């Protein structure tokens, strides 16, 4: 298949340019002295200085990081348990269960967020950290199961049987044989969960306690008020971080051949 494909090549160039031009411009503007992101270009690093000295974005970033870590760690445990259970359950139950699990992905987050706010108001929980935690967890869980369950199914069962036959307890067999075997998928699921939670604006918009601003909420407020050049600096850093994370996921073997979806 070593032929020239002028049309496909042209479309690919347009697509990649479309995807990376805005990111590139934002990175460029983050070094531009102009307050309004306009030309002419004058080099400056003052927005990075402001980003790290100004309080609002920094605080929101930390809140988002530790909150997403908490959601990710707990949901990876639940996700792995679910995958183990799904593999042992009968086919009919597994089918119904995964259909229900996929609903969490297919229902627009707007509707899910509103519905969760309703039920939390109804039971008196309202907008709270616990509510925000639960809402983000249910959004994240399907992604973990979607990545871990197929890996678990591909694992050779005989290894576990052998460990059990040699006298290992179920728990020991899991930690010494099964978990190392599915570790890349678990790590990829964890990274995916972290990113989904970290970036989940809509759910946090409806469920975050009043006055508490996670990073997406903070950015939303800043963008709505007007152009803020220190977001450029933040965006540049975040794109670099997500590039590093994507590279990690890819290294773990879940980037190229297997789709993330």
């Amino acid at each position, binding site marked *: 298949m070593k032929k020239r494909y002028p049309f496909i090549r042209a479309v690919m160039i347009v697509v990649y340019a479309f995807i990376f031009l805005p990111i590139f411009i934002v990175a460029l503007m983050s070094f531009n002295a102009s307050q309004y992101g306009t030309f002419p270009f004058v080099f400056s690093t003052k927005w990075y200085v402001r980003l790290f000295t100004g309080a609002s974005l920094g605080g929101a970033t930390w809140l988002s990081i530790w909150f997403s870590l908490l959601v990710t760690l707990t949901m990876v445990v639940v996700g792995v348990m679910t995958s183990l259970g799904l593999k042992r359950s009968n086919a009919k139950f597994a089918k119904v269960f995964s259909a229900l699990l996929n609903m969490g992905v297919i229902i627009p987050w707007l509707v899910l967020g509103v519905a969760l706010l309703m039920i939390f108001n109804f039971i008196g929980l309202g907008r709270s950290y616990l509510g925000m935690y*639960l809402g983000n967890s249910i959004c994240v869980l399907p992604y973990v199961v979607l990545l871990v369950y197929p890996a678990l199914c591909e694992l050779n069962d005989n290894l576990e049987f052998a460990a059990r036959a040699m006298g290992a307890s179920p728990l020991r067999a899991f930690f010494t044989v099964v978990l190392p075997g599915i570790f890349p998928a678990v790590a990829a699921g964890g990274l995916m969960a972290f990113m989904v939670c970290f970036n989940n604006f809509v759910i946090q918009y409806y469920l975050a306690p009043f006055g508490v601003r996670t990073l997406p909420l903070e950015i939303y407020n800043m963008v709505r008020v007007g152009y803020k050049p220190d977001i450029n600096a933040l965006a540049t850093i975040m794109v670099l971080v997500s590039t590093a994370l994507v590279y990690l996921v890819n290294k773990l073997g879940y980037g*190229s051949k297997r789709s993330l979806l």
Partner: protein
Amino acid sequence: MTKSKLSTWLLMLPSTGMLALLVVAPLAVLVFASLIQGNNLALDAALSLGNYATILEKGLFFPLMGKSLAMAGSVTAACILLAYPTAYGLAKCVGEKHRNLLVVLIIIPFFTSQLLLIYSMMVLLQANGPVMSLLGLFGRNASTSILYTNFAVFLILLYEFLPYMVLCLYSSMCKIEDNQLYAAQVMGAGKARRFLDVIFPLSSPGLLSGIIIVFVPAAGSFVEANLAGGTNGMLIGSYIDTNFSVSLNIGRGCALCVLFLLVLCVITLIINAVIRGVAGRRL
């Protein structure tokens, strides 16, 4: 045997509980709340279909729903047009070495915050920004902007969802064997025939999941319209949102959500049937 049944049951307990309490129960409460007038969410509240009657009478629902569906439809169509050649190129034309890098590049925006993607598109499109300055060279007034129009919302949604479509199509095109394409070529099928009779039917599962993954969230989007849509940018998502965050009419907001979900269900079923039907006939 019973012991292993018990352990399976225990393993499934947390997630089953979460699904029941955080997906099924909230949706039930949503339907219940849609039957309540105003904001009095209590078990003994009087139930009626009043909210639905007001919504259908007032006539804001249909135009906004139509506009959202048109927006989501055009975004999905543009995604398909751009993503098909790209996914084909990634799966079949690019060398092994470049492929990995190119796929990773497509995944990056997918991992970047939705808000930052919206924001970077707004920076690109703003008055006196890069695009308008460029257009200014061709005689357009650079201090006006296409930002705060429906077209800007379209571009932002396209930008957000294009990677999803490319990844969905790419994963199913990887499964098409080169031999099948060769065979079609040897038998004399031209480019169009090869696409219609081989590539399209075999990639239809990816196309289907791509359409659903793009269309459904695009139809329910409201952040893009709130930030970049300007005064005429309202979509059904923003209308639902205003009932909760601005005008506070919980009953009506919930009824809107229920209607919106129903419309989405019907459309998803139609898309499913159409793609399966067309692809099935081609196989």
